[in-house]
């Protein structure tokens, strides 16, 4: 867990340019950085970036539709697992026939993200093994994230909508627009005799797999787990092909909670997106707010007052504890320890939520960060007790006690150990290649934590360790989470000790209009689930031109198939529980 190595970007950057003169050219647009790579030579360049430059961790892949410039772009952000800033490279393609070579064979982490770019923008990735729609269903018509695509309830390009004031003619949009006005039906569409594709492509894909196994001819059955299933942690669906009770193929199906976050986000003003980020990973709204605020602050060049920074760390770490308690409780639920451990763990989470409620106003959807600080200072009292005393009691007594109990209760429990040890191990190389982040990556033995790799806020001031596992099995993931709670408590103690008692919480005057300079930025934070990234493009207006979310839960699922194949069907539930997904973030 070395301190972040000072990346020697200058020589490397030079060498990339030197090596590929005319193929990889620096992005010279105002406010942009990184490289634009020619599509036909992309494979060679990407291979060089990965192998020679050492950017082994592909974090984010996304599309951008530049309607006015009549081209589309695929934007990649790669990092080094030893730390340091991103290498950002782009491949441009035209809008009529968008084609880009797939890089899944170099970076398996790109698989779902490329599918998403295809689903949202219609960009075809040549060489992708399984290019189907991912969030929408196969029969869906249109590429929703394109700038010229309009949904049925479309009102205006940007918010605020003009008819809200001063006319105030209230209506329900569905009454105003009773039948899908903007839905484009294919020519000659006739509902009678309409035969949708349904899940055909999905099952075809599943059946491509080599049946493998013994010479004995056995029947294989396909089982759908979800989207309504108690152990999928929401509306997630896994299609599993079974040989006996062994899993030999698995395909996750997404999109049952696809709430069009990004499309709505590009209509919102910068500030309006803040409460929407709450609803990404709804267990960790404080962290989401922070990561989004970081991104916009980066673009605006804003600084944050010291006290606000401490409050943010306080909130982040409490969130991390709450989220890990929840994850552990439900992992145990999936393991069969129905309810009891969860009930004990939720008690402490409820207390943390009390603090969030007293500070920000709600338990879950905190909407707490603002650009340049936080919305409110800490409250004076909490349940008639001085807040600082309350926090002190919580951080020095209650949470450590709860953690100790959790360890005594579960870490050495034979049933937990028997079920979890050795289940679906993953090596460090695989974890990196599959783009895993957060506890998943660390359990595999990679000490990669954004708080250390590229410290944000004031995380460089705290003394804490990064817990890592060795084998990357379910038990390691559990242990990493438990140890992270311990480290978070350590940070919280330091935070409480060093926090300035008084001070500004905003560096600028609070306002609701923000002019963000034109350009792009990728901001990220270490969420309890992993690396949460925001890729924003501004055209200098009051709202983002592109607003993309690199959701850790979503990308952690890239490895789900790898983790599950070969295990028993009963263990699939446990493996999924150990990944700790939240559907709001998976589907956005």
């Amino acid at each position, binding site marked *: 867990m070395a301190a972040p190595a000072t990346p020697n970007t*200058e020589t490397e*950057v*030079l060498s990339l340019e030197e090596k590929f003169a005319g193929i990889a050219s*620096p992005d010279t647009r105002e*406010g942009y950085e990184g490289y634009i790579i020619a599509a036909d030579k992309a494979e060679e360049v990407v291979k060089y970036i990965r192998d020679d430059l050492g950017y082994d961790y592909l974090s984010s892949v996304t599309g951008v539709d530049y309607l006015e410039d009549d081209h589309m772009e695929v934007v990649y952000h790669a990092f080094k697992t030893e730390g340091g800033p991103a290498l950002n490279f782009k491949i441009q393609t035209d809008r009529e026939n968008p084609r880009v070579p797939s890089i899944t064979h170099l970076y398996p982490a790109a698989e779902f993200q490329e599918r998403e770019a295809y689903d949202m923008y219609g960009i075809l990735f040549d060489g992708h093994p399984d290019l189907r729609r991912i969030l929408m269903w196969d029969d869906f018509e249109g590429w929703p994230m394109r700038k010229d695509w309009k949904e049925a309830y479309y*009102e205006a390009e940007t*918010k*605020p*909508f003009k008819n*809200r*004031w*001063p*006319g*105030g*003619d*209230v209506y*329900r949009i569905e009454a105003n627009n009773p039948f899908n006005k903007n839905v484009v039906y294919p020519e000659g569409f006739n509902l009678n005799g309409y035969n949708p594709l349904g899940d055909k492509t999905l099952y075809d894909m599943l059946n491509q797999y080599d049946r493998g196994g013994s010479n004995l001819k056995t029947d294989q059955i396909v089982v759908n787990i979800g989207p309504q299933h108690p152990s999928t942690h929401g509306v997630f669906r896994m299609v599993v092909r079974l040989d006996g009770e062994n899993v030999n193929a698995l395909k996750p199906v997404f999109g049952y909670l696809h709430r069009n976050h990004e499309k709505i986000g590009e209509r919102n003003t910068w*500030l*309006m*997106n*803040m*409460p929407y980020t709450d609803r990404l990973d709804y267990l960790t709204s404080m962290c989401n707010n922070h990561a989004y605020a970081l991104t916009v602050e980066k673009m*605006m*060049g*804003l600084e944050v007052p010291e006290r606000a920074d401490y409050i943010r760390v306080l909130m982040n770490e409490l969130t991390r504890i709450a989220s890990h308690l929840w994850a552990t409780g439900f992992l145990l639920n999936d393991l069969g320890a129905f309810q*009891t451990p969860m009930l*004990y763990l939720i*008690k402490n989470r*409820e*207390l943390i939520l009390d603090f969030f*409620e*007293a*500070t*920000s*106003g*709600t338990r879950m*959807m905190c*909407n707490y960060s603002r650009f340049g600080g936080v*919305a*409110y200072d800490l*409250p*004076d009292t*909490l*349940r*008639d*007790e001085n807040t600082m005393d309350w926090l002190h*009691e*919580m951080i020095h*007594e*209650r949470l450590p006690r709860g953690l100790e109990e959790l360890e005594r*209760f579960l870490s*050495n*429990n*034979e049933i*937990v150990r028997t079920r979890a040890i050795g289940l679906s191990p993953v090596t460090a190389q695989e974890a990196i290649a599959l783009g895993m982040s957060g506890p998943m990556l660390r359990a595999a033995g990679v000490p990669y934590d954004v708080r250390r790799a590229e410290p944000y806020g004031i995380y460089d001031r705290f003394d804490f360790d990064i817990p890592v596992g060795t084998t990357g099995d379910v038990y390691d993931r559990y242990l990493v989470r438990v140890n992270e709670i311990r480290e978070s408590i350590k940070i919280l103690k330091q935070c409480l000790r060093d926090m300035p008692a008084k001070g500004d919480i905003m*560096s*600028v005057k*609070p306002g*609701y209009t923000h002019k963000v*300079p034109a350009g792009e930025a990728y901001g990220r934070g270490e969420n309890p689930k992993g690396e949460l990234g925001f890729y924003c493009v501004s055209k200098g207006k009051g709202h983002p031109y592109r607003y993309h979310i690199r959701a850790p839960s979503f990308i952690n699922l890239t490895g789900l198939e790898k983790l599950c194949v070969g295990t028993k069907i009963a263990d699939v539930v446990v493996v999924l529980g150990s990944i700790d997904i939240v559907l709001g973030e998976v589907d956005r």
Partner: protein
Amino acid sequence: MYGLGIIRGMGITLKHFVDTYVDDLRFLGKRYYDESSLKVRQGPKAAGAFTVQYPEEKLAMPERFRFVPFLLFEENEDGTTQDRCTSCGICSKVCPPQCIWIERTKDPVTKRPVPEPKDFHIDIDICMNCGYCAEFCPFDAIKMDHDYELSSYDRTSAHVFNKERLSKPVSYYASIRPNFFLAEEKVRAEENKKKAKQAEAKAKAKGGGKAKAAAPAPAAAAPAAVAEAPAPAAAPAASAADLDAAAKKKALAEKRKAMIAARKAKKGK
């Protein structure tokens, strides 16, 4: 030894079971349905059963708790009421899901807008309880409510709140958020004083004795801000602090530009 972990786990469950009875002793039989013991039971020193016996006992909402918004009106001594809202439209502009509809009143004679809302609608089926309307309202006219018991059998009739349904007296606000109310009243009083002084000075300069016209009624600040609709929702009062912030912003923007330039230069090398 095999099974030790399980026995230990059972022990913890047993301890949780006993804890409640031990904790009962601490409260001497007053554990339930008692407000002061509820606070202890729900704090970090809680032990044993953690349950809130809703609806008999309700968990107190902290002052900042926010649910669906409501509108404030002043109750005058003569029994009439005065909306604080001036229909300036800022809340409907900042609302992320755009769930606020405001109809502005127009003077029947002059056709000029009058600073009070003719009607005010909030669709609570869209509202995301983010609190921006209350945060950015310059007149403290819209606030977030504490009343969460809003369930209904029919949403078409009950879920678009109109002005009548939304309006609540200032005294109610003072009761749910006493500290906020006091702090805001202080600021308002100061502002009104300032305004009265300015008006007086103006009146003096004019030579007339019309200072009284600018009575420090709460809505006195309204006409200025609301008069010109197309102007992009002017901030309530441009002060020295504003200018200062603007200058700061500019400096930061320049700093950022310089940073980008430096980065580019570095790469160019």
